[in-house]
């Protein structure tokens, strides 16, 4: 009888561990395939970005680059990190705080023609705060311009 009880516990522990292992696999798999990476316009211009996969790009909306299509919903604008720019196409309602000269983060795919088709344009939370990704892009462009552009 004692053996039987022990057997039962082994079965229970075995099932439990098996399920936890399965869950862990599922989680890590989902995790890996759903990570969205962030790139700067400079990286996009250099071709350091994935093809056919969605990623995020951030920077400032370039002044005087914003154009609205006939339907009132398709918009084009240019994201800049002050060194390089990427043209963006988006169809939909823009977030409240979208403005030329302000920080922006877009998620989408980069086409062969260099046009970034955004599926999502992200809002930031208040007037003072720059989306962290956008701030990062500007910072990187600045350090690069200090080191690389100087010799030119």
């Amino acid at each position, binding site marked *: 009888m004692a053996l039987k*009880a022990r057997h*039962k516990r082994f*079965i*229970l522990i075995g*099932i*439990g561990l098996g*399920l*936890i292992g399965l*869950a*862990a696999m*599922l*989680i890590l798999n*989902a*995790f890996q*395939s*759903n*990570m*969205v*990476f*962030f790139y700067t316009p400079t990286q996009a211009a250099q071709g350091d970005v994935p093809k056919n996969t969605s990623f*995020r790009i951030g920077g400032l909306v370039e002044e005087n680059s914003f154009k*609205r299509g006939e*339907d*009132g*919903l398709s918009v084009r604008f240019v994201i800049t990190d002050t060194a390089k720019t990427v043209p963006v196409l988006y169809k*939909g*309602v*823009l977030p*409240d*705080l979208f403005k030329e000269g302000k920080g922006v983060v877009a998620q989408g795919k980069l086409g062969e023609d260099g046009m970034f088709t955004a599926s999502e344009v992200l809002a930031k*939370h*208040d*007037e003072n*705060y720059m989306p*962290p*990704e956008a*701030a*990062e892009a500007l910072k990187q462009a600045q350090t690069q311009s200090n080191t690389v552009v100087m010799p030119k």
Partner: protein
Amino acid sequence: MVANEQSQSNRQNCDKDVDVIPEIGHFSLILALLTAVLLGSIPLIGAARGNAVWIGLAKPLVNVQFLLIAFAFICLAYAFATNDFSVAYVAKNSNSKLPLQFRIAAVWGGHEGSLLLWALILSMWTVAVGLFSKHIPDNMRARILGVMGLVSVGFLLFMLIASNPFERMIPAALDGSDLNPLLQDPGMIFHPPMLYMGYVGFSVAFAFSIAALLGGQLDAAWARWSRPWTTLAWVFLTIGIMLGSNWAYYELGWGGWWFWDAVENASFMPWLVGTALIHSLAVTEKRGSFKAWTVLLAICAFSLSLLGTFLVRSGVITSVHAFATDPRRGVFILAFLVVVIGGSLALYAWRAPKIGRGGQFDVVSRESFLLANNVLLAVAAMAVLLGTLYPLFVDALGYGKISVGPPYFDAVFAPLMAPALFLMGVGPIARWKESSLPELATRLRWALAISLILAIALPFALGNFTAWIGFGLFLAFWVFVTSFELIYKRLAKSTGSLMARIQANSRSWWGMVIAHLGIAVFTLGVTIVKGYESEIAVKMAPGEVAHLAGYDFTFDGVKAVQGPNFEASVGQIHVSKNGKLRTVLEPQKRIYTVSGMPMTEAGISPHFIHDLYASLGEPLGDGAWSVRIYHKPMVEWIWFGCLMMGFGGILAIADKRYRLRNRSKNDTPSNTSGAAV
């Protein structure tokens, strides 16, 4: 601190109506810290040495601590109410044009004030434990209150060192920079206090566990004492999360009710672990098993509450580097988390083996079903933790920026929760210790057949069948049908009138059933809204009509309305079906004058069957606007399900077995410490 005194004297020279209330509040906080230090030491030492006088000090200290913190809180609220912009925190989070109710809610609108709210709520829970624990042995109670005092020391110290809400500003601001417009909403008045009641409430379960580890007493009685507290905290957290979700739904204007963003996840992780905890406590009370696991869950639930508070409030989420702008805060928070989590886990590793095992149980038994539920919930919480913290770690280590969005959480969550929902139909009818699988299958086969048929028939009737919809509906109906079968069997077993039959079952049993039905309602709502919602984004000029889900939305244009501290463009959209007017939606776009920040207020017509929802995008010239229109079938069921869960929890707490113990012990004058109050 020197700067503080200086500012005061400076102000006295130039300002006429200076008052020292903020300084009094500050002083009150310092006294509260001293009280908390005493509370966190004397009763614990007393309990270890068996010194009745030291043990007896716990309750008066608890009351004094509460009065001091409450007084400090009132001082801060007074500074907000009277627009004292010489207080930096008030200047940052309020404005003279802000309506009074939001000025009061602004007390917890920022980092410092929400810590004060946290500390206040902690002291309230501590007082409550002191009041309603006459049936608990004195040394045990002293340990519980002492542990809560230690937690309070951490928070008060943090506030006084690095986040003082009473700090003055030289020179005083002429006016405040206003509360974030996102937060200027009735949701701000109720959601954070509710959520904090839940977060902090888990400190009680935590303190019970630590006290049990310290004292080495962990039995069915201990579980019965800590159960109502844990359930109550869980109820608050459930309602708090529900309010937050509903708030996001109408405030953000995107029609979403859950975004899997870090702030939401921070509240959801303690909920998941807390849910596991209330189930595990049931086993510990009824069968004496799962003791060590229960204690571990209690530690985890509270640790995640702490983590959640700091994640949301320290600004790490918006930017890891915000942490670095005030290194004192970051270092303190990390140190505090390490001490609380590391310390309690170390204590657990040391003492848990002494707690002992509970009763044996079979592979097929209610215990093992509940164990499976616990494991699933714990794994789900870990998956959320991974998705929330990993991007922060990657960023902090300088490996670039990544984001983990809703697709990850959806992909992970559904497969983990599906078996948990399935087990909800099986667990409550399985016998403790040893159950029979064939017997369960026989009893459940009709429920299985009915829910399968409904899950296939309903989507076809609604005109859209996908595997996910069918699966979600099956799980919802499964919980419904098995619960009703269970109710029917239980009622049939007893005799008398219907009321008598209902009362023949305990309130905690009814609470369980209603909470489970709440989950079913919630699941049904989620499945239907995910499967059948529709939306359009259109440019609308006045008089133009948009069509969605069989409704005609006519845009009547926008008129300007002046609010107390904002200018609003109020749109009017009347909705009709087959020429008959159904409702009028009035979405707003506000510009808050102080910060210049635009804000969307959705126009919603909530309904039992579906919500009609519209929000304004941007003006496109000539009176035309971009407008988003949503049709959200059964979305209200999501929040109603949460309310049912909360109600179930309250029923469970109201169970006679908690009350009777209380009363019968109250009658016997055995409590020595009562004299000390």
